[in-house]
């Protein structure tokens, strides 16, 4: 199905880069946030937990619309020139992946916090070592969190269309290409793109799981 259509690999590569960068960005913020919130009760921690869990259901099109208005040349951040660029798509998808990663990390850490703290403190460890041990002991659910975050980012279409614009050779990713080919009535191509999207998600998830299980 993909023979004679080299552009599909260009699109796939962009999907991977954009969703990968978004997941990385969301993990850099979400993992510390989840561990910090989950390690012990914090002031406002419950409210933060509610916001993170609710954020897992953030409607992508609304996130896209808000970022569109921010990044538009007529908007407050218009001078950055980010609208209709892959960077804008990375930011939108990071916003969507962040609650997944922070939320799942929080839940995993919370469940282990009391036991790990007792053990580490009992052995004379510091609070910092408690957090590090919590992070290590939660690595399997954190892999699930990263997979969920990547899945949310790579499969997202609403925000990617609004802030990316589906520009050929520039911001076209697998999901927006599926929409385009469906609109054109080329359902075979749309289906081929869908199959590649599923394959990409499967491969990345497999990589994450194996990485989490090693040692």
């Amino acid at each position, binding site marked *: 199905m993909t023979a004679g259509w080299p552009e599909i690999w260009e699109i796939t590569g962009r999907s991977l880069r954009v969703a990968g960068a978004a997941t990385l960005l969301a993990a850099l913020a979400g993992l510390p946030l989840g561990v910090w919130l989950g390690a012990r009760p914090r002031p406002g921690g419950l409210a933060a937990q509610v916001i993170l869990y609710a954020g897992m259901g953030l409607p992508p099109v609304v996130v896209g619309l808000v970022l569109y208005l921010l990044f*538009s*040349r*007529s908007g407050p951040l*218009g001078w950055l020139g980010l609208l209709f660029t892959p960077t804008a798509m990375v930011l939108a998808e990071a916003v969507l992946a962040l609650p997944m990663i922070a939320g799942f990390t929080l839940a995993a850490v919370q469940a282990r916090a009391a036991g790990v703290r007792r053990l580490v403190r009992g052995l004379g460890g510091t609070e910092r070592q408690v957090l590090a041990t919590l992070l290590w002991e939660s690595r399997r659910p954190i892999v699930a969190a990263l997979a969920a975050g990547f899945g949310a980012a790579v499969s997202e279409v609403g925000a990617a269309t609004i802030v990316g614009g589906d*520009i050929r050779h520039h911001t076209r990713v697998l999901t927006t290409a599926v929409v385009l080919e469906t*609109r*054109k*009535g080329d359902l075979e191509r749309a289906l081929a793109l869908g199959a590649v999207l599923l394959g990409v998600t499967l491969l990345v998830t497999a990589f994450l799981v194996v990485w989490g299980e090693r040692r």
Partner: protein
Amino acid sequence: MPRTLALMAVFGLALAAAPLRLATTTSVNDSGLLDAILPGFTRETGVEVQVIAVGTGQALAIAGRGDADAVLVHAPDLEARFLRAGKGKGHACLAYNNFVIAGPAADPAGVAAAESALDAMRRIYRAGATFVSRGDNSGTYHRERALWKACGLEPRGRAWYLESGSGMGATLALAAEKQAYTLTDLGTYLFMRDKVDLADLFNRPEPLLLNQYGYMVVNPERLPGVNYKAAYRLRAYLLRDDVQRAIGAYMKARFGQSLFNPLFGRCKVEVVP
């Protein structure tokens, strides 16, 4: 090797010049027309054209915020309004075709026997035959509304009147599934003809069904930061005789008729601010 160097030179030029963002309607993009004529512009000028294909309403909204440098749309009323608001300038008519009323081959409303487009719409209304409207702010939707209005009829709220809220290709597919009538531009219909079970029941070039594509440059005085120099260069390129002829020839062999008839800048319907 020389070819690689040439490619690199073109690519280098493309990187050197600021890209041009063209907000346009899905019908000119999805038909492949822009992919056929824009690379020539990039080769000549080194300006990469980034195409954002949405409905006419959204294209004008994007350009109206300064997020595109030029628009290519097909709704003369909305184009005039855009010019009046001072957001656009340098309007030029590029091409035209016509809108088509498509529907089930069985034609329960008798559209094929209609004397005019308005008669066809009245027949659909009287028969209460299922009709799929785009229901968005696209150029095609605007034309459909204008046709109903000219008939003095309001189909909204009727059980047989469906609003798809999606692009023309998806709307044709929906109409085919429901064996319903719909208004479509000729280009998208010809492209989808083999894939959807719909007949072009009313396909006559009458003024009310004229589908005219207009190009506008976004006004840099009103919306600073837009790439108006490149937008004007593209305007000149699109209006050039050889490019206009290429537009007229696009897919003509495949369909036996022009998808887009060149206008050489001479509007069939005047777009006056």
